[in-house]
């Protein structure tokens, strides 16, 4: 398969079951929303060392948020509900509570099963040192801004610029992490331009994040290492500087490879993000893309397989 002259390898991305939650952060201006959201999603590229994978799903206009201010939707992924509890609490308390004028809302409904939802305001309220108050309000459910209202509980924690308002509990949903594709370029510049174009296109797709810096990974990894203490190590098969001394998966002439890793709330969202990302990369402004591939472990570790040829079957310009 080829798109715009770029070879699409007959490979598949292998992804894993994860658990995700969504937080809506609002603030007085788009600038402060971006600061809060960026700070909160920092150091959240991989569960391997960061606890969670997190990213900004999208930004909201004031007409789209619960409090009528600028906002952002942040998705956080972990291996289980329990693995999300502490990172979510810590990130909100250190990065959002501290940020001027912010408020925090659930982005998915807490399903009401005691012990199942993720406590947020319920934990952070203690910062109020007894001056905090709770408020139950009839509001639209987190997923939409209209329809039958439900009762939602918020904590109001006094802070130096007024109050930090924070939803009591967050819902969580089953999700998928580790969708990916690889961009093999003739030069680092061309590969990076293609990766940037892919990210721009993929950020328009809801329910996905690309958690790595700028959405792009240069250090693709394999499972295990010759050093027993390491869970993962560099994937030499994709390192252009090792062609000739290690078994390679690169096509001839490859000088740089960038990986786009995708976490999403469902298979369809990741598949769509993969599709638009690859198409954008194949039409990158300076060209120079030799091939698109994907990372997997032979299909033995993750049950979600994103087969590139199937995902791109209806893409325009496919040969």
């Amino acid at each position, binding site marked *: 398969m080829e798109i715009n002259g770029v070879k699409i390898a007959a490979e598949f991305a292998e992804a894993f079951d994860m658990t995700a939650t969504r937080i809506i952060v*609002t603030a007085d201006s788009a600038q402060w929303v971006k600061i809060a959201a960026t700070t909160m999603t920092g150091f959240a590229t991989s569960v391997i060392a960061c606890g969670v994978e997190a990213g900004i799903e999208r930004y909201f206009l004031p007409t789209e948020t*619960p*409090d*009528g*201010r600028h906002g952002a939707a942040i998705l956080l992924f972990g291996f289980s509900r329990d693995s999300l509890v502490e990172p979510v609490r810590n990130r909100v308390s250190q990065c959002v509570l501290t940020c001027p004028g912010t*408020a925090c809302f659930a982005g998915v409904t807490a399903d009401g099963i005691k012990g199942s939802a993720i406590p947020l305001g319920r934990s952070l309220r203690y910062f109020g040192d007894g*001056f905090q*108050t709770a*408020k*139950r*309000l*009839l*509001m*639209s459910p987190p997923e939409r801004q209209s329809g039958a*209202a439900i009762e939602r509980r*918020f904590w*109001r924690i006094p802070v130096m610029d*007024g*109050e930090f*308002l924070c939803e009591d509990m967050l819902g969580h949903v089953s999700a998928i992490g580790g969708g990916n594709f690889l961009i093999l370029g003739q030069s680092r510049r061309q590969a990076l331009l293609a990766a940037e174009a892919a990210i721009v296109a993929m950020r328009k797709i809801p329910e996905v994040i690309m958690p790595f810096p700028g959405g792009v990974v240069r250090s693709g990894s394999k499972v295990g290492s010759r050093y027993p203490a390491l869970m993962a190590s560099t994937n030499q098969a994709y390192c252009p500087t090792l062609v000739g001394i290690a078994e390679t998966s690169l096509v001839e002439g490859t000088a740089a490879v960038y990986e786009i890793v995708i976490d999403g709330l469902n298979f369809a969202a990741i598949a769509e993000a993969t599709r638009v990302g690859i198409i954008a990369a194949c039409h990158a402004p300076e060209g120079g893309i030799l091939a698109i591939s994907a990372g997997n472990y032979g299909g033995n570790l993750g049950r979600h397989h994103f087969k590139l040829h199937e995902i791109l079957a209806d893409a325009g310009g496919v040969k």
Partner: protein
Amino acid sequence: MTRLVLKNPLQFRLSMAGILPQNLGSQTLSEIEKIPLLYGNRRSPLGEFFTVSKTSGSEDGLEIIGDGSRMDEVAAGMIGGTVTIEGNLGHSVAAAMTGGVVTVMGSVGHGAGHGMKGGGLIISGDAGDGLGSDLNEGHGPMTGGVIRVAGKVGDQAAHRLNRGVILVGGSLGKGAATRMNGGTVVALGKIDSGLGVMSQRGTILALGGVQSLLPSFADCGNHDLVIHRLLGQGLRQIGAEDFAARLASSESLHRYLGDCAVAGMSEIWL
């Protein structure tokens, strides 16, 4: 829908306890007419007071037409459906109701919505004392639902209010929200003295001002908070656009916290 049209003006008080849409929907007209009602100190069949008919519409709907100023406990204990009353009502309308919507196109007596747990009570006229309060009749405080009164409300409203929302379009009488422990009271008219005595939690939006404030409420200054926006959203959700608009028109509100006499954290916004 079941329709009850009052035949003659009531001489004594008539208890409508148990006359609920969920009970009437499956009954025939003759069965409904035989339901005994307490009238003064005797029991008489419902058919003695009302002309009963079934009209098109939802099976769990009840319509009462006529001057019910002496008709008490209408929709008390209601769990769902709709009750519409074209006329005034006596005391304890919608007491301890847990669901459904009661619409009164007129005024109501004392104790409307006392001990309410859920649902909605909409009153187009005035309401007497003890609106949405705990009247020590075994129902406890109001712990949910929405009460909306277009006109003025008597004394001791929202006593021991725990949760839920009370909206008052007109003035609010003396001793409102005493011992309040949660919930929200919004009044567009002036609120009389004794507001929030010994209250611990909850929010009072006195958008029409207050006659006087207790000295045990601390002046916390003017503030524009996110919670005001959310309260506005919440008001819009329950169709109280006029209340939301009034709230939105207030650029910043003045906050008083108390009742400090009981180390309370309830708030009055002016």
